């Protein structure tokens, strides 16, 4: 039973991280129908920035919670800035182009960002300091839940609630929903579509950076390649839940997290990454619209 609970918490933790990244995919797809291939890289850059800032601060004598807060804030800011810039450089000029063009551009951007970090930093795995505090009251449950897991799940839940409120109740959220529904019509009624798209990229990237900081302190090491696999998995989660749907992305991420956790726990850990791909292929074949998505018919 303890093993089951451990796997359950493991799945929930993975699922929460995937959800943070998957939201970026699903929001961007919902608005401009583009698979933002570079999104995984934004997450990786978030983790790297946090690592760099945290190390510099730690060496200059700061400690504890202030390092965590400062590093996270800088990481989130920078990731958002990268997301904003990537959109302006690689996607905005291609908004009217055929569908494959922005996709190829996105793949190019992803390769570029990976190699940019590889060349500017290092190809080795870097040890990531555990910035998250130890929680005393979790001691009795140490068998299956650690404080990092607890903090990850708690943070993700909070962020989900905030995001839902942002989209449901604010002016910006309303504009985003309008743009997702019909971009041209939104433009006609006076929504500034360009700034809505920019905001979407900024929010998505900021969420990815939070995911980056959390997962990096959980696993304890990062390199330039972590974004690729995480990106594909989060994308799988987004498709599983129905791409374009925000609750769908969260649900899909949790399903994927549990699938991975239980299948590696009970079947085999050799094919950890393959499970996600197999799941992805199966969904796309049998239910391309996903769990919560609605199917759209192709218009002539």
């Amino acid at each position: 039973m303890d093993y089951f609970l451990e796997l359950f918490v493991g799945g929930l933790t993975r699922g929460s991280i995937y959800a943070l990244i998957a939201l970026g995919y699903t929001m961007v797809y919902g608005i401009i129908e583009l698979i933002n291939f570079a999104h995984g890289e934004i997450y990786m850059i978030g983790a790297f920035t946090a690592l760099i800032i945290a190390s510099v601060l730690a060496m200059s004598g700061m400690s504890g919670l202030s390092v965590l807060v400062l590093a996270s804030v800088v990481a989130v800011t920078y990731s958002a800035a990268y997301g904003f810039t990537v959109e302006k450089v690689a996607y905005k000029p291609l908004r009217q182009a055929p569908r494959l063009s922005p996709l190829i551009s996105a793949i190019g951007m992803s390769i570029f960002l990976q190699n940019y970090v590889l060349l500017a930093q290092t190809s080795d795995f870097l040890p990531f300091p555990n910035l998250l505090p130890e929680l005393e009251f979790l001691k009795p449950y140490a068998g299956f839940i650690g404080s990092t897991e607890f903090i990850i799940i708690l943070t993700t839940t909070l962020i989900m609630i905030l995001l839902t409120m942002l989209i449901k109740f604010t002016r910006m959220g309303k504009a985003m929903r309008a743009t997702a529904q019909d971009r041209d019509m939104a433009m006609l009624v006076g929504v500034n579509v360009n700034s809505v798209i920019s905001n979407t990229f900024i929010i998505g990237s900021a969420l990815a950076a939070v995911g980056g900081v959390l997962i990096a302190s959980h696993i304890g090491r990062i390199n330039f390649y972590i974004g690729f696999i995480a990106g594909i998995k989060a994308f799988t989660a987004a498709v599983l839940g129905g791409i374009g749907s925000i609750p769908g992305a969260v649900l899909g991420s949790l399903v994927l997290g549990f699938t991975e956790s239980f299948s590696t726990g009970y079947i085999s850990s050799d094919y950890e990454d393959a499970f996600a791909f197999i799941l992805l292929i199966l969904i796309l074949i049998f239910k391309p619209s996903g769990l919560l998505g609605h199917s759209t018919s192709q218009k002539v």
Partner: protein
Amino acid sequence: MSYRYATKYAAELRRPFVVALWFMFLTFPIMVIRVNTIENVVEWRWMNMMYVGSGSFALSLFWRYLSGRKTPEGKRVSESREEAIPFTKRIFGDRRIVPTAIVILSVFALIFPFIFSIYQTNIMTTALMYVVLGLGLNIVVGQAGLLNLGYVAFYAAGAYTYALLHYHFGVGFWLALPLGALAATVLGILLALPVLRLRGDYLAIVTLGFGEITRLILENWNDFSFGPSGISGIPRPGLFGMEMNIQEATTYLYFLMIILCIITIFIVNRLQDSRIGRALIALREDEIACQAMGIDKTRVKLTAFALGSTWAGLVGVVFAAKTTFVNPGSFTFLESAMILSIVVLGGMGSITGIITGALILILLPEYLRAFSDYRMLLFGIIMVIMMIFRPQGIVSGARRTYEFHKEEK
């Protein structure tokens, strides 16, 4: 007068200046700071910031210049278009130039291994392999418009077919060549069958997942593929049982690749104008209209996948024979991305373009050694820049157009 020019230039320069500042800010943590966590030292590389600043300033100016040419100011666009078509026509359409160019090229190709070292010949062979791979992927991506990001899986299928058949049954190169192609074709059809219903971008992701699954299987299924350590001792191709030293074998492989290249170019060229080729292009342009014209969508897509993967399988066998060693490390996503950038740079659907693209992308990093670290970085940039400024590639595919001329009396 001069004052007015000065303000005009100042306005032109203001934006690049802002862009440069923005990029200096953006790249600050990653370009400038490097932390050595073992010795607890922070390295500040301020010079990098200077490079980023000046580089992005220049690039931004260039970007503005390019976008200025692209913007719909009407006159400028039509001007450049009128120039562009006669230019490609002048080069490739002139009856006198083409044979001369072919003669020069073939003489050069013939004497190449005898005037350059083994090393150079080896690189050239690699480049030729990528030419064939590019042409194969072009059938799927360029002609049929199906973005295949797992092309490397078929390449791996060819290579592993030869390696495994040799290991278990002692099968030679010449028998393995068609078998490898067959294995890749079957794999292509197997992949295509379930994913045919998918739309463009989903298809791309599924093929990407397929490529990664193939690599993961090769890495983890030790009994089948010998895991990450791979299979070594694969023989080079033989020629009627002749004994060859390394130099001769390299030269032989080079000529083999030349022949394979010529065959590929011939077939792909014939394919373009065939019934299937036109069906592929129709499919790329508009699926619904294409179906309405009575084209069996499923069959055409299957054909495209099968044809594309056949070439990958063939080159895979040659790859195994050339390196005499295969392991899963050679078949990563980056390989697929590289072949894709060859197709994108060269121009989707254009044979001349893809040959040029492959030669540029493979040979340039080899000859400019200082460059080779930046190879993948460059591929990424090329994909983005090409999509934005020249989506048709350096040599745009010659679309068959019917022109209407008023009869002159």
